[in-house]
Structures are given as C-alpha cells and as structure tokens.
C-alpha cells in the first residue's frame, strides 16, 4: 500500500514542474493570435456584408418584376370579363334572332314527328306492308330522331302515307314468301283485299307484323267462310262474294280459337261415341224395316189384285192359302185357323220396331250419363284448382253439355223414324189382322153363289 501512495506523489510533482515552464511563452502568442484573428474576422465580415447587400438588390428587382406581372394580369382579367359580358349579350340577341327565324317551322317539325309516330303504328301492322316491306323503318327513324328531319325524310313520310292511302282502296295480287306453320317457307301468289285481308288458294292468311312474315291461319274459320276466300281467289272476272274481316285480323284470330263441330263432337268422348253407335244402329234397323215392309206391302198389294192364286212369298198369300186349304171347314174353325196364321205372321212385321223406340229412349239417358260424368269431372277440377279460374271449369261443363246435345240429336231422328216405321207396320198388321178375313169372306161368298 505504501508503495502505491509513493508512486502517485512522484507523478504529481513531475507534472507540476512542466506546466510552469510552458505558460510563460504562450500568453504573448495568444495575444498575437487574437490580434491576427481580429483582423481576419473583420475582413470576412466585410465580405459577407457585401455579399448580402448585393443579394438584397437582386430580390428587389425580382419583386418589382412580379408586381408588374400581377398588374398585367389584372388588366387582362378586366378586359376579358368585359368581353365575356359583351359576348353574352350578343348570344342572347342571336338566340332571339334564331327563334324568330325558325318560328313556325319548329312547330311543323313537331307535327311531322308526331305524324310519323302515328303512321308507324298503322303502317307497320298493315297488311299493305306484306306487299311493300320496309316502309316502317324510315318512319321509325323520323319519329325517334332528335334532329330536325331532313327534306328526304319528309318526302319519305309523305310517300308512305300516300302509299297506304292508295293501296287501302285496292284489291291486288302479288307473290310473296309464306312461312308455313311447320316453319318451312314457300313462295305463293296471294290476294290482298284493301287493308283488311290476305287470301290465298287455301283460305285466309295472317300478316305477322313483328316478324314481317305472311303466315297461314293456325285454323281456318268455318267452311262457309273460308270457302268464299278460296272461291274469291280463283275468280278471274266479275264479282264474287267474300267474308271480310273489318277488324283487320282480330275477328279471324278469334275464329281460330273457336272449336269446330268435329272438335265439339270429340269432346263427348266415349259416351258420345256410344250414342253415335246407337244412332247408326237405330238408322240401320229402320232402313232394314223400311225395305222389308216396303217390299212386303208391294207384294200384298199385288196379291190383293189376284186373290184366287195365293202366292207363298207374302203374308196375305199365306193367309189365303190357309183358306184355300180349308175350304170344307165351317166358319168358326176357319177363323181359328186364320187367327193362328196371323199370330205366326205378326212377329215378322213388327220385329225391330220396338228396338228403335228403345234406342230413341236410351239416347237421351246416355246423354244424361255424359252430363253427370262431366259434372263429376268439373267438381274434381274444383277440388284440385278451386273456383278461381272459370276457364278450367268451363271446359268440363262444355263436355257435359255436348253429350246431352248428342243424346238429343240422336233421339230426335230416331223418334221420327220410329213413328214412320211404326205407322207402316201398323197399317200392314191392320191389313192382315182385320182385313184378310173380310177378303177371304168376299171370296167365299163369291164362290158360294
């Protein structure tokens, strides 16, 4: 420990000796140095001051320049504002001048646009467009354009209206493409009746304005109507009657939705067919009876003229034969034998006649059956779909009524035929039953004299 303290003391004494010798020289140097420094710093300051002064002058010049620029721009602004105001006034004046100049003409263009829009509706749907296609496009352009229409456009409008007017009074024949119901196309000659109807050799045609196609009707109207169309088409001279649709297709479209008689008939379904079978059977039986009774009546009449020689081919002849075979017997026995023979003949005469009557009675009953079946179906539909849609219900009700109608249609002729056939058979039976005995009595009387 003593050793360390000794070392530190030694070091301290050494360093104190050196610094005492240095400070004696440097104070003068320091003075000299300060003096020198003061001179150089003053020089530097001066130089810097000069620099600042020169920069200040530059900035002053810049400021002056910017101020001058501002003044220039302000002046320009004032000038332009004035100019703008003046232009506004001129513009307003010019607009008034333009209005004055177009005046009535502007109204005319509005009218022409409205006329084109109106005419487009009529002309594009008119059947005249089937003969002169493409008239609608120009009209559509005029009607929808925002610009004032040009002179050719106006002429186009005039021409389209004039064509429609002239053609609506003409019956003309031309050739065109017809798009058939199966989609195939064929070129055919068609006749146009004014703006009302298009007809071809097959009947009425329809012009579809959306597709611009001529199409046959999905279903032609009733034969007596469509017949006049094809007759008219094939007429080459003179006058021919024709059904014209004044609603330009609307009535024909309704007609296509109407059911034809055969469609009505098939609505009767099985019951309807059964009734038809009944009618046919009844008619056949009646026909057979008419022929047989007619022939029998003719033979009996010829036998009446020749009572002496009985012919076996007719009932009266067979009765006479009974008399001729039994001339010897007394009147009572002869009457019994005749009655017997008449009883044998009767079924041959009135056979089948009650069958016709029965058919006539059954037919309306079967119609009633069809009605009941139809009503059952109607109520089934109501159960499924409710009563909301009368169209669904009406379909089945019409089925019910069709069978009733068929029953009546079947019964009426059968009743009439039955009355005729029954009348004929009754007169024949009367002849055999009541008159044959008298004829025989007359012969017997003659022979006994």
């Amino acid at each position, binding site marked *: 420990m003593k050793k360390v303290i000794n070392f530190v003391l030694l070091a301290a004494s050494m360093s104190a000796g050196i610094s005492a010798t240095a400070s004696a020289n440097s104070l003068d140097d320091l003075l000299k140095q300060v003096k020198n420094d003061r001179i150089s710093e003053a020089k530097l300051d001066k130089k810097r001051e000069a620099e600042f002064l020169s920069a200040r002058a530059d900035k002053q010049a810049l400021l002056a320049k910017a101020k001058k620029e501002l003044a220039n721009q302000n002046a320009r602004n004032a000038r332009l504002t004035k100019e703008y105001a003046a232009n506004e006034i001129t513009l307003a004046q010019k607009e008034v001048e333009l209005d004055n100049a177009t005046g009535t003409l502007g109204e005319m263009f509005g009218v022409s646009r409205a006329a084109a829009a109106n005419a487009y509706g009529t002309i594009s749907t008119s059947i005249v467009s089937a003969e002169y296609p493409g008239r609608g496009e120009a009209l559509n352009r005029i009607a929808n354009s925002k610009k004032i229409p040009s002179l050719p456009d106006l002429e186009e409008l005039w021409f389209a209206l004039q064509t429609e007017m002239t053609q609506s009074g003409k019956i003309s024949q031309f050739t065109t493409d017809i798009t058939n119901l199966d989609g195939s196309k064929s070129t055919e000659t068609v006749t146009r009746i004014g703006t009302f109807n298009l007809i071809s050799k097959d009947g009425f045609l329809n012009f579809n304005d959306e597709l611009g196609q001529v199409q046959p009707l999905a279903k032609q109207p009733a034969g007596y109507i469509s017949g006049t169309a094809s007759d008219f088409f094939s007429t080459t001279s003179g006058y021919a009657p024709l059904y014209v649709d004044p609603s330009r297709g609307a009535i024909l479209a309704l007609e296509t939705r109407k059911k034809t008689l055969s469609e009505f008939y098939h609505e009767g379904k099985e019951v309807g067919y059964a009734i038809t079978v009944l009618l046919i059977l009844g008619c056949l039986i009646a026909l057979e009876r008419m022929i047989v009774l007619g022939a029998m009546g003719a033979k009996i009449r010829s036998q009446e003229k020749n009572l002496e020689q009985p012919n076996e081919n007719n009932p009266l002849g067979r009765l006479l034969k009974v008399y001729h075979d039994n001339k010897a017997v007394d009147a*009572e026995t002869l009457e019994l034998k005749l009655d017997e023979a008449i009883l044998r003949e009767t079924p041959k005469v009135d056979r089948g006649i009650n069958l016709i009557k029965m058919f006539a009675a059954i037919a309306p009953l079967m119609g009633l059956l069809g009605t009941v079946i139809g009503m059952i179906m109607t109520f089934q539909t109501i159960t499924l779909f409710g009563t909301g849609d009368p169209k669904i219900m*009406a379909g089945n009700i*019409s089925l019910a009524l069709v069978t009733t109608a068929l029953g009546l249609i079947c019964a009426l002729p059968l009743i*009439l035929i039955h009355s005729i056939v*029954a*009348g004929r058979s009754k007169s024949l039976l*009367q002849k055999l039953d009541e008159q044959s005995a*008298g004829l025989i009595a007359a012969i017997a*009387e003659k022979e006994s004299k």
Partner: protein
Amino acid sequence: MLFLIELWESVRSFIATGGNVLYVVAFALLLMWVLMVERYWFLASVYPKMRDDIVNRWNAREDTTSWYAHRIRDTWISEATELLEQRLLTIKTLVAMCPLIGLLGTVTGMIGVFEVMAQQGTGNPRLMASGISMATIPTMAGMVAALSGVFFSSRLDAKVKLAKAKLVDSLPHH
C-alpha cells in the same frame, strides 16, 4: 212487297239471334202443319164421299148377318179407319218432338256460353249474352210450336174417333 221484305228481315234477325236450331224447329212446325192441313182437308172433302159409298154398298147387300157379312163389314171399317188415322201418329210425334228440339237449342246455346267462358273468362257478359239468347229463343220457339200443334192435333184425333164411331153406327145389321 216492301212489307214482305221487312217481314223476311225480321225473321232473319230472329234466326240470327236464336241460332240454327230454329231452322229445325221451323222444319218440324212446317211438316206438322202441312200434315194437319192435309188431314183436315181429307176429313172435310174426301172422307164424306168415301163414307157414303161404304154405307150405300152395305145397304145394297142382301146378307148382313152372317159370319161372312161381319168379316166384310169389319174389313170396310178397318180400311176406312186406316185412311182416317193415316199420319196421325207422325203428327203426334212431331208435336212431342218440338219441345225436345227446343231443349236441343238450349243445350247448344249453353255450349256456346261455356265456350265463351272458356276462352274469355266471365269478364264480359255481353259475349255470353249471345249464347244465352241462342239457348232461350229456341226453347221458346219449340214451346210455341208444340202448343200450336197440341190443340189442333187433339181436335183432329177427336174428329177421327167420332168419324169412325159414326161409320160403325151407320152400318147396322139388318
């Protein structure tokens, strides 16, 4: 002449509102009346001569009581009856058929109404009205036709029966 044209026009408009069934009614009515007029004419002008002829022949006979005479008398009565009763059955049938034809018209008219309903719905009663008039007018026409025939045909029936009874009475057994 103008009156006739007007009449024809009114008939045509009646048929147009009533439908084609009216033609059937008209045919039945015409047939019925033609037959009835023929019967009245027969009873009034042909039959009396025939009856007198039969009565004279009967009175001229010597034998009117034997079996043979009875049979011959029956035959003459039967022949006369046959001529008297000719077509009466058809007339009666036609009278009975007229309301049935009217009923047929009702049914076809109702079919029309329901067809309109099936196509257009129940929204437009005017469209249905044409079907209803086609249903009601033939019914009325059928009734009127039947009524016009009922009275005269039953009168005819009675007349024929009376004529027959008188004939039988005027052929006595001497």
